[in-house]
């Protein structure tokens, strides 16, 4: 069953068409890869789904309900979670307090329970020393903290926007295991990634975007052999 479905979704920025006619679905309990060259519209797609931008055209259905015009904070509470391509920690709040923002507002817990939930999630993701200032955290830890913050709102569908970028190969492997652990909890995942090893290992299915349009869809092995996809990534032979 589809947990989220888009219907001819489009987003324009002035004259720039960032997304156009994107129809796809996210199935329950699946890891879907969203791939495509730089500027293909992957992050814009997440931003439109999450409610940061409203769609110019088209519809978004979450669990069968039309959420196209719904603002971001309500979508979060409904169960659409996300991380950010460029990490966005909140200075002025400690590690655990950053995570608490998700459980306080996304899940609507009282402060005490929100802290307990945040501590539990930090443990789940292997984050220690919870009252630390975020300036003393590594890139991997900040990425994990962002995942914890998103999980704290108890999403049903979680978007991971290039969580592996900038990590070394050990860290990447650790992150792959983390994503698997999250998925085992019954959370559907949409993952944007440039590292093809990650897509191959993790995803059940892939959607390829180019110039804001879906150009291919299917298991990684199938789309990676698709001539359209190869052309989009490598360009045409002169």
């Amino acid at each position, binding site marked *: 069953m589809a947990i989220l479905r888009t219907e001819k979704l489009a987003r324009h920025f002035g004259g720039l068409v960032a997304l156009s006619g994107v129809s796809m679905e996210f199935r329950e309990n699946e890891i879907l890869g969203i791939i495509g060259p730089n500027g293909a519209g992957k992050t814009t797609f997440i931003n439109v789904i999450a409610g*940061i931008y409203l769609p110019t055209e088209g519809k978004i259905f979450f669990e069968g309900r039309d959420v196209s015009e719904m603002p971001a*904070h309500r979508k979060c509470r409904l169960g659409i979670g996300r991380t950010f391509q460029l990490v966005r920690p909140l200075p002025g709040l400690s590690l655990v307090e950053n995570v608490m923002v*998700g459980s306080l*507002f996304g*899940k609507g817990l009282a402060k005490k329970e929100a802290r307990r939930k945040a501590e539990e999630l930090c443990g789940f993701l292997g984050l220690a020393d919870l009252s630390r200032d975020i300036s003393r955290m590594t890139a991997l830890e900040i990425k994990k903290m962002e995942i914890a913050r998103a999980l704290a709102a108890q999403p049903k569908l979680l978007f991971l926007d290039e969580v592996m970028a900038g990590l070394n190969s050990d860290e990447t492997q650790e992150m792959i295991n983390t994503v698997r652990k999250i998925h085992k909890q019954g959370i559907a995942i949409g993952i944007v990634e440039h590292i093809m090893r990650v897509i191959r290992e993790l995803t059940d299915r892939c959607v390829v975007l180019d110039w804001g349009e879906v150009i291919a869809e299917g298991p990684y092995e199938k789309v990676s052999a698709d001539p359209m996809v190869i052309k989009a990534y490598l360009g045409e032979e002169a």
Partner: protein
Amino acid sequence: MRNSRYLLYLILFLILLTLPLYTGVYFLNVMDIILIYMALALSWDMLLRSGQISFGMAGLFGVGGYAAALLHLHTGMNPIVSIALGGGVAGALAWIIGSAVLQLRGMYFAIVTLALAEIFRVIVRNLPDLTGGPEGTVLPSAIFAGDSTRTYFLVLSVAVASVLASEIFQRTRIHFALTSIRNDEIVAKSSGIDVFKYLVFIFVVTSAIQGVVGGAYAHIYGFVSPEGSFSVDFTLLPIAMALLGGMHSTWGPVVGAVVLGVVSEFLKLQIPYGHLMVYGLIIVVAILFFPQGIVGTLGQKMKKTGSQ
């Protein structure tokens, strides 16, 4: 550690409570001014915690003052009740205005608040039947017939209420919401925070505090006027105090108000009318050399020596 801190607060509070027993009228009057500005500085800082800068404090202060004075004058209402209602009027006005303009952020919001203060002043000037026009309105008597001890207790309770409000904002989920909004609105929204609702809420609460302070001020001096009640002093001085003491905390504006309050009292005697220049200088020096303010800088120093 924690207990000794609460003990300190208790002692401080007892000193403030017994102050009229061993000080004179002049000292109490100076305390009134410090406490009034302290409440304003706190309210300004509370809004700043959401990242929004207001230059409209004098406007809401003046509106609260006029509302309290006119309600008392025309309906014979108890002055204390009229002061509370002054806060209510300022809060209600902030709700209407905030709902309209809080889609704006940062400098754009700041400029709108600056304009609002001016607009209120012009309106008050031009409604002579209601407000007394450019000359203002004199109340039949100052509150408590000018009794300095009771006046001091009135101002003290307003200041303590502001400190408590500020601490509630620091210790509850409001703190998380405001800090998130200030640092990254996209993260705030994506984490389930209704940004607009929180901004309107904080604008209404801080404006209501400014209205109450304005109401108290009007009753203490028994007088409201367009130039006096909407004076730019009520915007600039609290900002200078919060910046000097340290932003985004309760103790910053409190310490800033005490330090600048004492300094300004001294300056008024030494260089009449020149004190505004000194405030400006203090703001510049504070921002340049210790942007964290007195409290923030000391806190950092203590943390450093503590960890060594």
